[in-house]
């Protein structure tokens, strides 16, 4: 601060103290007023009161969230949001987010829930809370129904296609037996083509890629053989909302029980919900 300004600041000091103390008193009163209802009525109650559930969803990550030909959002996450809104008996407002801004949206109170195919990690866990898992997200080895492979050692003598440099490439390279042949393709399209044309016995890829293959309804359908790496999706909400957490977890548990979630999984991922999700 330049000296001249500093001097002015000191001169006005005496006068400003009174102004400051007044402001502080107003602020304290305001905080007390606004904090009181928040402490008593939690997020769940304010959602019910407003009659609207605001959910952050992806718009560029099919099959979890994308824009359909009718220009409306669609996908696994959108159906999950609809399910929760219906169960809470409130309207649904979908807020499109990117993977970079979905947590800030939650932290600044712009949304009540993040249903955006989000995985759990310690960094995220430190700033927001997570529900139980609601969607499967994993890498695994997929092959035709008749292929008898239950774990990595069964790949002995088999040829497996994989996208070079992907997580599943790195992991499978470690666990595959020596006499299994890994064929590494440039991108997912190469891996998919190799599987569909029968150039490889099986492929290692994500369940989302497998879902994309199934969606095309090819003559050869990839079925899950074994898991390489599992990182299911969780719903995120602001910290310290036990009532909301309980309500959401109850809805997820019921949806798993009554088959509603299985239906969503069948529609968007082309597969039944894996046991133990």
């Amino acid at each position, binding site marked *: 601060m330049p000296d001249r300004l500093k001097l002015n600041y000191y001169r006005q000091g005496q006068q400003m103290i009174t102004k400051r103390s007044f402001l502080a008193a107003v602020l304290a009163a305001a905080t007390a007023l606004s904090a009181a209802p928040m402490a008593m009525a939690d997020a769940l109650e304010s959602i019910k009161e407003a009659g609207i559930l605001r959910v952050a969803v992806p718009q560029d990550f099919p099959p979890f969230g994308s824009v359909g030909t009718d220009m409306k959002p669609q996908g696994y996450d959108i159906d999950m949001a609809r399910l929760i809104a219906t169960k809470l008996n409130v309207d649904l407002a979908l807020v499109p987010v990117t993977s970079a801004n979905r947590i800030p949206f939650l932290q600044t109170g712009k949304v009540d829930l993040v249903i955006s195919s989000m995985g759990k990690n310690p960094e995220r866990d430190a700033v927001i809370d997570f529900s139980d898992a609601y969607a499967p997200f994993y890498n695994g080895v997929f092959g035709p129904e008749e292929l008898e492979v239950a774990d990595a050692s069964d790949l002995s003598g088999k040829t497996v*296609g994989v996208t*070079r*440099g992907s997580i599943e*490439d*790195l992991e499978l390279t470690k666990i595959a037996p020596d006499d299994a042949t890994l*064929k*590494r*393709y*440039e991108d997912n399209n*190469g891996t998919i*083509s*190799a599987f569909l*044309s*029968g*150039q490889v016995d099986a492929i290692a890829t994500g369940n989302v890629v497998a879902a994309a293959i199934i969606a095309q309804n090819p003559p050869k359908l990839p079925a899950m053989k074994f898991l390489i790496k599992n990182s299911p999706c969780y719903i995120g909400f602001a910290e310290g909302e036990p009532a909301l957490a309980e309500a959401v977890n109850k809805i997820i548990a019921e949806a798993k029980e009554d088959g509603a979630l299985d239906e969503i999984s069948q529609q968007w991922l082309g597969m039944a919900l894996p046991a133990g999700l």
Partner: protein
Amino acid sequence: MTYQFDFAWLATYWPVFLDGVLMTVRLIVIGGIAGLLLGTFCAWARSLGPVWLRPPVIAYVELIRNTPFLIQLFFIFFGLPAAGFRLTEVEAATLAMVINLGAYSAEIIRAGIEATPKGQFEAGASLALSPVQTFRHVVLVPALQRIWPALASQVVIVMLGSAVVSQIAVEDLTYAANFAQSRTFRAFEAYFVSTAIYLALAILLRFALLQAGRMIFPHAGAAR
């Protein structure tokens, strides 16, 4: 430039590069020999062969010369299995290279054959040589000699073009570079090494082909 070169990973990955070089060499040796044989046959068929053989040969040459090599490769590897014709990736790559070099070299060799003076055929006939003998000694060898440098260049081009076979998971030199790059994230160094090896391979291959030319045509210059 502030980039710090780091070649320490080569200590781990050099066997991948060695295998890659061997695969590239194997592809171009087999593909080169078979491709030149196919090209010679097509050149004969198109310029001197029976009339009924010309349309299919012209169709083949034009089809291959007017489509991308990568598409030809994908067609053979990913497309043909749908018709019940499945090749391994190395077979598919070799076949694609043979077909590709066959078409290009056919045109180069044909140019050499068609530049043969008419008197040379007549000279062959007057020596009571059979048509096969005439073609072999009087037409083909001088023709090849004329276009040998162009043919050598085409073989080098096909060798360099073979880099795309890594797309169907053939473990060639490009595959080695991509593989090392995806594991070490040392892209600059990985492609630096592969560039240097390709350059050396191309120079060696050209030298070897020109030397071979000298051995096959010991009377260089006599035909001119």
